[in-house]
């Protein structure tokens, strides 16, 4: 282990009553890849923002190379040799890759001199990048390479990566690991935030585990099992999914026949000839890297958007291609969109009013005046039945944590007793316990005879839940195949190249 790069001691940061970080200690040495583990809300992002100068701690000290420092801004952190690769990319969509790299570099513009330096750096680390293309035309992997290269241009002694693999294909993740190994080999310290335990065990030599803002353990992840790490993160044994008992499949509830959809706007993806059937009683998952047409597919199934150029959407046997979301709800469908706040719920509305958003389509909520007794009762039932933890009896949607809000949204739809449930990203940004709860709820729904379609970027989730999996790539959907007949490698191939690899296809 090399010399000590960073020593955090007693870092505390509170937001109101919530202690996001509570006397956190952490050391990082040169040449080390150090994992920071924890559920959502454990305080990882807060700690990293403090280290990158975006937040100031209430107390505690930061030492870099033995010197006590204060980090009032990201510039100050960069000047101390700290680089950051953000979880939700901090890139500028309409700018070229080169411009994106120039922006945080003091005094630089996107000129020939910078280009030469960037190209040299990219060669050294084996990062292939098209520097002149606007970022919105690039894949998630390419975007991340820009972000990494941008951090590397500042010769960081410490590189922080916040859940870097969550948007990558297995191959892209491998390439990332190789780059990180090179970087660590050259003496940089790397802080690697993730909740994918297997990759942490492969890549990292030490792990600090946070729970509820406190450090609960520091360990060598190579010598403990993934289950032990998970137990440390969650506090108790991780909940396992109960597979549904065998049950017969019923009639097809959702059918997509040769569905093609024109792309929406400049950044949209066209859907090409999509075929899929979901029968009552089964769970079908759609896997794939984000941005390959999943949002467009959700929109066209729910009836919220998409210009259908050919083909049909059928729900419960009826052609609903030209009908709106309420007509589809009336046929027994329920929809959980990806965006919890703003689409699934009104952030400032109490949970009882948020009931109206989907219930109005099929239920009577009062003829002239709103039946607030009924909406209140529904909200209470959802909160009880689906274990939604709320700060008050009927809080605003925005006051709930991501996991609890998602439990509410899923529960609200299940209370409508749907025969077809469409869920886009059921556990995106939700902690492990809530994610397991939501998945179990959906499995139970299928066992009771509903058809469930799950669109997920999380391959583990898709494989854990689904009876059959189809993969989205470049706006085309592969044939849905039984999970038991598919290996991870096959799915990885479908995610990167699609069903029938075509040279030059986007």
């Amino acid at each position, binding site marked *: 282990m090399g010399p000590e790069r960073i020593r955090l001691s007693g870092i505390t940061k509170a937001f109101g009553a919530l202690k996001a970080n509570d006397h956190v200690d952490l050391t990082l040495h040169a040449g080390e890849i150090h994992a920071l583990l924890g559920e959502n809300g454990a305080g990882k992002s807060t700690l990293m923002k403090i280290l990158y*100068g*975006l*937040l100031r701690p209430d107390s505690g000290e930061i030492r870099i190379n033995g010197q006590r420092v204060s980090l009032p*801004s*990201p*510039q100050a*952190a*960069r000047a101390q040799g700290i680089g950051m690769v*953000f979880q939700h*990319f*901090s*890139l*500028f*969509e*309409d*700018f070229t890759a080169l*411009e994106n790299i*120039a*922006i*945080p570099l003091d*005094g*630089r*513009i*996107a000129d020939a001199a910078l280009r030469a330096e960037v190209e040299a750096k990219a060669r050294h680390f084996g990062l292939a990048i098209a520097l002149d293309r606007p970022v919105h035309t690039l894949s998630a992997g390419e975007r991340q390479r820009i972000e990494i290269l941008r951090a590397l241009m500042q010769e960081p002694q410490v590189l922080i990566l916040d859940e870097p693999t969550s948007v990558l294909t297995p191959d892209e993740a491998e390439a990332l690991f190789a780059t990180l190994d090179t970087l660590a080999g050259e003496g940089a310290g790397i802080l690697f935030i993730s909740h994918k335990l297997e990759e942490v065990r492969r890549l990292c030599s030490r792990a600090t585990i946070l729970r509820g803002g406190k450090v609960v353990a520091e360990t060598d992840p190579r010598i403990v099992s993934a289950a032990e790490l998970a137990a440390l993160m969650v506090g108790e044994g991780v909940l396992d999914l109960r597979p549904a008992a065998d049950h017969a499949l019923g009639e097809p509830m959702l059918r997509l026949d040769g569905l093609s959809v024109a792309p929406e*706007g*400049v950044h949209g993806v066209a859907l090409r000839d999509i075929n899929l059937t979901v029968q009552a009683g089964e769970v079908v998952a759609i896997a794939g890297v984000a941005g390959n047409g999943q949002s467009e597919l959700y929109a066209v199934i729910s009836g919220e958007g998409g210009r259908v150029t050919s083909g049909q959407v059928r729900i419960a046997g009826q052609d609903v291609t030209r009908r709106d979301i309420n007509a589809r709800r009336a046929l027994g469908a329920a929809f959980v969109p990806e965006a919890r706040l703003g689409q699934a719920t009104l952030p400032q509305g109490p949970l009882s009013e948020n009931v109206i958003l989907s219930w109005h389509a099929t239920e009577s909520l009062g003829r002239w005046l709103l039946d607030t007794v009924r909406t209140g009762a529904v909200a209470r039932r959802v909160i009880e039945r689906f274990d939604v933890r709320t700060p008050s009896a009927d809080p605003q949607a925005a006051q709930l944590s991501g996991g609890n809000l998602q439990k509410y949204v899923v529960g609200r739809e299940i209370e409508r007793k749907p025969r077809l449930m469409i869920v886009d990203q059921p556990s995106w940004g939700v902690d492990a316990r809530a994610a397991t709860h939501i998945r179990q709820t959906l499995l139970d729904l299928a066992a009771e005879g509903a058809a469930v379609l799950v669109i997920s970027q999380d391959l583990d989730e898709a494989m854990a839940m689904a009876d059959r999996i189809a993969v989205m790539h470049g706006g085309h959907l592969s044939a849905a195949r039984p999970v038991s007949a598919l290996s991870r490698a096959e799915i990885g191939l479908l995610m990167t190249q699609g069903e029938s690899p075509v040279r030059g296809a986007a």
Partner: protein
Amino acid sequence: MEMLPFILATVFTAATPLLIAALGEHVTERAGVLNLGVEGMMIVGAATGFAAAVLTDSSVLGILAGALAGMALSAVFALMVLVFATNQVATGLALTIMGLGLAGLIGQGFVGQPRAAIPPVKIPLLSEIPVLGKAIFTGDFVFFLSLALIGFVAWGLNRSRFGLLLRAVGESHGSAHALGLPVKRIRLVAILFGGLLAGLAGAYLSLIYTRFWSPGMSAGRGWIALALVVFAAGHVWRLVLGAYLFGGITVAQLHAQAGAIGLPSQFLSALPYLMTIAALLFLSISGRKGAGAAGSLGQPFVPER
């Protein structure tokens, strides 16, 4: 043929205030701020500029005062939008209403007073060229300043470090903040620059274009400038083209009123405004929703802390 240089010169004179105001708003919008108060800042610039020119008996000082008055009004807008994170559309509209009232107050004692013209600048040698010499290379100093501003804005936005940061802040203030760019400070500079130019455009109206002050004399030119920025969709050259096109229509309408064209003058008076609607319609029908607009245009920025 003898009329041509004269007509061209009037086209440029009519276009210059639109061009200057639009250049300012263009910079503001590139930084992600929508300031609908251009009309208000313009008319305050016109009234203050005229009053200052009469009081100091210097049109040059008047123009300077007009520009600063526009900037002062934009500082109010900046305070509301950046510090209190108010809705930009509502704040901009309020700014226009306030500006119209304020201008009437400032200009109260100056209605109808005449001002002498500022002596034109002649570029040596070039002003001797037939037709073009009189049309382009002879003009008031603000006209030449506006030409310099085109180059300054185009170069500044696309080639300078500050322009890169300004566009970055406009494209995504979230990303910019995460990288530690001073989002609010950069937007403040952009808003003040927009106000300075709107005020300058207003002073140009009262001191060079009409050479008298009357309430409401900006007559919707601030709104046309805003439409030009939309029409330009992020390209300075389209903004320049649009401004001169509108200048041309304005002059054509004046000639029509003199009976030179066989169309009712009311129709031609309405033409610049109809063209504005047509340009906006064309842009939205051409299907590229929000094409060319900065990514976080009009959204209030509130960092967590």
